[in-house]
């Protein structure tokens, strides 16, 4: 009897303990569920709000202001030379890209001559992605300044000057707007208050970013990318290495039997720039 009694008491005590434990476990479980729910809601809300906000912010993919005379879908391309020239040379360049600098230093006189002879219509895509990997804003500001020069009708000469004064890739001197304005002094007629304010206010910043987005979506991954009538010719066309002589040869071959264009027909920079050439002028102080 007493044995049984003791057992019964223990059972009752155990049961109470069990019940309390079960209750506590349940409360813990509920709390965990609630915390989990809050975490899920916070994460989901952040992501949804984020996507909506960023979508809103990047709405105008079509730039509001594009430099005068730009062509193509959304006016992203800067043309140089005769629009009715029989061949088109498409060039993707970043102002900070060293390979573009070396391409320009070697080829710009030849390209300028081909333009002036009405043999090629050059389409420049001024991209600006070096800033992403190296930091700084030289690509973007440089591209904007090139847009400003295009707007003023001096793209070709300023473009040539910029590449001949290109800093080391890791050195972001184009990130300083004053450097870009100082270089404009080498192009007669470009260094005007309009140009300065265009550079300083980053007037074509939206356009620069649209050009870059267009490049991002293209299949081209590096700069310079150079296409002659749509075919890649840099660094090689087929098995043949590019050189100024080969470039002329390829263009002439493509133009065989075709009417040459009328240079200057699209209102490009007035200065004849077969002179803006080769000389590797040291950067002006």
């Amino acid at each position, binding site marked *: 009897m007493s044995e049984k009694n003791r057992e019964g008491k223990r059972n009752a005590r155990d049961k109470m303990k069990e019940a309390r434990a079960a209750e506590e476990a349940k409360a813990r479980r509920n*709390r965990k569920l609630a*915390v*989990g729910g*809050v*975490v899920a809601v*916070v*994460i989901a*809300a*952040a*992501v*949804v*709000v*984020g*996507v909506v*906000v*960023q*979508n809103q*912010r*990047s709405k105008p993919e079509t730039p509001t202001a594009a430099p005068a005379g730009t062509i193509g879908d959304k006016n992203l391309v800067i043309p140089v030379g005769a629009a009715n020239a029989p061949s088109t040379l498409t060039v993707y360049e970043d102002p900070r890209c060293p390979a573009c600098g070396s391409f320009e230093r070697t080829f710009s006189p030849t390209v300028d001559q081909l333009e002036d002879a009405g043999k090629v219509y050059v389409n420049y895509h001024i991209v600006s*992605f070096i800033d*992403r*990997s190296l*930091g700084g804003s030289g690509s973007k500001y440089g591209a904007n300044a090139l847009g400003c020069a295009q707007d003023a009708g001096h793209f070709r000469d300023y473009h040539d000057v910029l590449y001949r004064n290109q800093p080391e890739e890791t050195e972001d001197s184009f990130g300083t707007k004053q450097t870009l304005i100082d270089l404009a002094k080498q192009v007669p007629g470009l260094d005007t208050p309009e140009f300065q304010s265009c550079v300083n206010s980053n007037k074509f910043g939206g356009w620069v*970013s649209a050009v*870059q*987005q267009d490049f*991002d*979506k293209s299949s081209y*991954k*590096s700069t310079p990318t150079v296409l002659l009538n749509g075919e890649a010719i840099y660094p090689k066309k087929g098995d043949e290495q590019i050189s100024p002589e080969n470039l002329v040869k390829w263009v002439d071959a493509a133009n065989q039997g075709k009417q040459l264009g009328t240079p200057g027909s699209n209102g490009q920079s007035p200065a004849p720039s077969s002179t803006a050439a080769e000389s590797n002028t040291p950067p002006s102080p």
Partner: protein
Amino acid sequence: MASQQADRGRVSGLRRAVDGSAAEWFGLAVRLGLALVWGWAGLAKVADPAEAAQAVRAYEILPESLVKPVGWGLPFLELALALLLLLGLGTRIVAIVSGVLLLVFIAGISSAWARGISIDCGCFGGGGTVDESQTKYLQEILRDSGFLLLAAWLVYRPRTKLSLDAWLAA
């Protein structure tokens, strides 16, 4: 019996090391460390949505229709994780999500590496195609693995000092 007790002694010594107050302070440091990582990663990607989208696009894994939502949403996911870690709310769940996300990142970088495409991981802003000589896949993977260790610790021991979790449990 004696040996069992010794075992238990050893185990409880270990328990004290992982469960004790020192471990909870250590956990706090780990939690704040991971919060810093996510906060930094998220903030760096919020400013330029186009760049964030391009960083995702450069991996050439997702279809174009998903590139933007992921590029835009990811930084906010990272910021949300940072906030939750900072508060110490739902630490274990957040640590699990962090770990999964880091594994996804490591897989993405490895895949880019294996396919021979040259990109910057865009882990802390930037991203996109870079010159082949500028890829840093190994460093990026090692770095993310380090972060993964932080997350793993918090999955294992989510109880930390100065956390909402601890405050709610009290």
